[in-house]
């Protein structure tokens, strides 16, 4: 008897688009019903939104006020500095995406240093100095709109990460004073809403500083956001540290490494990888929470949005303005989420 070993193509309704549709959307009778109901629901809702967006919406309000949305009260003549910063970021991102793939440590180190340099440069460029000809001073209190949201978000995220790690290590410390302090800090901050932390930082920071040093409102808000986020990052990090098997700590100690090296070389690299979803989630939350600063008198993206809807000629156009603000938030948050997924994949999270 001859055995048929001829290689055949699979039947068309089992693979490809048709196959996927058949399996996932029309598999059983209730699947089919659900599919039809969903399609109807989506069409009706989307149609309503799209009709509004393309026909009756007055996008003029966004077009006219785009500068205010983006940079708030930043002087018109200095906007080239914002464009320059954006340009630098775009170039750095492109370079990073291309170069990071080759796993050459020297290049990666150079790229990381370049990012830090760009960040510092951007701050200097945007803020400027007193009467320096090209870059006169634009005090941070004038920054508003998306610029302020990004500034608060970036500073909050970048500063709260190392502080959070230190707090997590402190909470696990065997030194009682350190442990009690860190635990109390984390629990107190986690027990109050962000708004109250912002109010506290607005009112109380001047009390801690010498009278000659007057900290700007925006800087006080940045401090408040950083301290708040650090407590949450600390708990995420602590969770990650607990997930590392005791054997890793023991192997590190047995081979002669001191506690600091065990933490930095062995435990943290493994723990941080596992914590990326939780920590990035915290950062995305923080970024959106910057919208609360309107309550302490700062004009971030949403604050500006609210102000724009109060303008004489554009009264009553909340839908357009807030939809636009929503889209901006979505774009940034999705970008962070995407970057986090790429980072996870590249670090091999989930594969040991």
């Amino acid at each position, binding site marked *: 008897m001859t055995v048929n070993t001829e290689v055949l193509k699979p039947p068309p309704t089992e693979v490809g688009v048709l196959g996927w549709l058949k399996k996932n959307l029309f598999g059983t009778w209730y699947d089919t019903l659900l599919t039809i109901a969903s399609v109807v629901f989506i069409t009706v809702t989307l149609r309503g939104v799209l009709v509004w967006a393309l026909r009756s919406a007055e996008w003029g309000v966004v077009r006219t006020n785009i500068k205010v949305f983006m940079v708030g009260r930043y002087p018109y003549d200095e906007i080239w500095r914002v464009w320059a910063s954006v340009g630098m970021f775009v170039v750095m991102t492109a370079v990073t995406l291309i170069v990071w793939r080759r796993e050459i440590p020297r290049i990666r180190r150079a790229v990381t240093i370049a990012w830090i340099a760009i960040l510092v440069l951007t701050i200097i460029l945007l803020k400027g100095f007193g009467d320096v000809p090209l870059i006169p001073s634009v005090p941070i209190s004038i920054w508003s709109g998306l610029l302020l949201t990004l500034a608060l978000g970036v500073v909050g995220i970048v500063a709260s990460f190392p502080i959070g790690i230190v707090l997590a290590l402190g909470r696990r410390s065997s030194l009682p004073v350190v442990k009690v302090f860190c635990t109390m800090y984390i629990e107190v901050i986690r027990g109050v809403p962000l708004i109250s932390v912002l109010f506290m930082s607005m009112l109380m920071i001047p009390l801690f500083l010498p009278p000659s040093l007057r900290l700007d409102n925006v800087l006080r808000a940045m401090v408040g956001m950083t301290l708040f986020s650090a407590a949450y990052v600390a708990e995420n990090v602590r969770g990650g540290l607990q997930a590392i098997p005791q*054997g890793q700590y*023991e*192997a590190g*100690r*047995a*081979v002669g490494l001191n506690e600091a090296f065990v933490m930095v070389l062995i435990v943290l690299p493994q723990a941080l990888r596992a914590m990326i979803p939780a920590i990035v989630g915290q950062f995305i939350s923080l970024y959106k929470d910057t919208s609360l600063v309107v309550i302490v008198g700062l004009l971030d993206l949403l604050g500006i949005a609210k102000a724009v809807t109060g303008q004489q000629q554009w009264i009553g156009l909340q839908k357009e303005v807030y939809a636009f603000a929503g889209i901006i938030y979505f774009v940034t948050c999705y970008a962070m989420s995407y970057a986090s997924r790429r980072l996870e994949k590249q670090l091999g999270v989930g594969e040991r």
Partner: protein
Amino acid sequence: MERERHETSDPEDMIICRDVHKWFGDFHVLRGVNLTLKKGEVVVICGPSGSGKSTLIRTINRLEEHQQGDIIVDGIELTHDIRNVHAIRKEIGMVFQHFNLFPHLTALQNVTLAPIYVRRWSKDKAEEVARALLTRVGIPEQADKYPGQLSGGQQQRVAIARALAMQPKIMFFDEPTSALDPEMIKEVLDVMIELAKGGMTMIVVTHEMGFAREVSHRIIFFDEGNVVEEAPPATFFTNCKEPRTKLFLSQILSA
């Protein structure tokens, strides 16, 4: 580096345990252990699970703390002084039952980590020594693989290389083959036999009596927190005195 050298110790004594007691909370796990290990000696510790044999060797390199008694390793007394602890840990290489390799590093990096950061060797020197050790344990070609890509026997051999990289004077093995599939046990035991025949001072906690018979100078039967019997292999298997030892031997040798 300054370390306290015990005045009365004989330089040939690698490990001295005197009346060592340890409690886990209320549980008295080590009950007055007295043990001496001389340079070049290979000692096998066997006994039922829960007897405290793993705890004993983990106490000697301070992975656990003892509450009473003296432990002196190569003339250094094990105290709360962290410098003593670090000095002792440098002299003892440890191989664990579950390997405990660092999963985010390659086999080569696992081996070079400690020499670079503790003994402050250059990367090149560390890698040279590491490759030589990986060859010695029989897996030079796995140097750039991650632990997740290696079999159990290969992982344990990397763990042995990692312990040897620090050029320790004493090697501890805590049930090194208990987590391995039978066909991989031999490859690890062969490495350990070669080490023993080369003159390394070793304490091996294991149930592998074939290994004990072949290379050990002394076998210790450990039960209920203390040494019950110790004898060279020639007499241990044939002429053991204690009834508990006889019972234990009958249980494991029949398997």
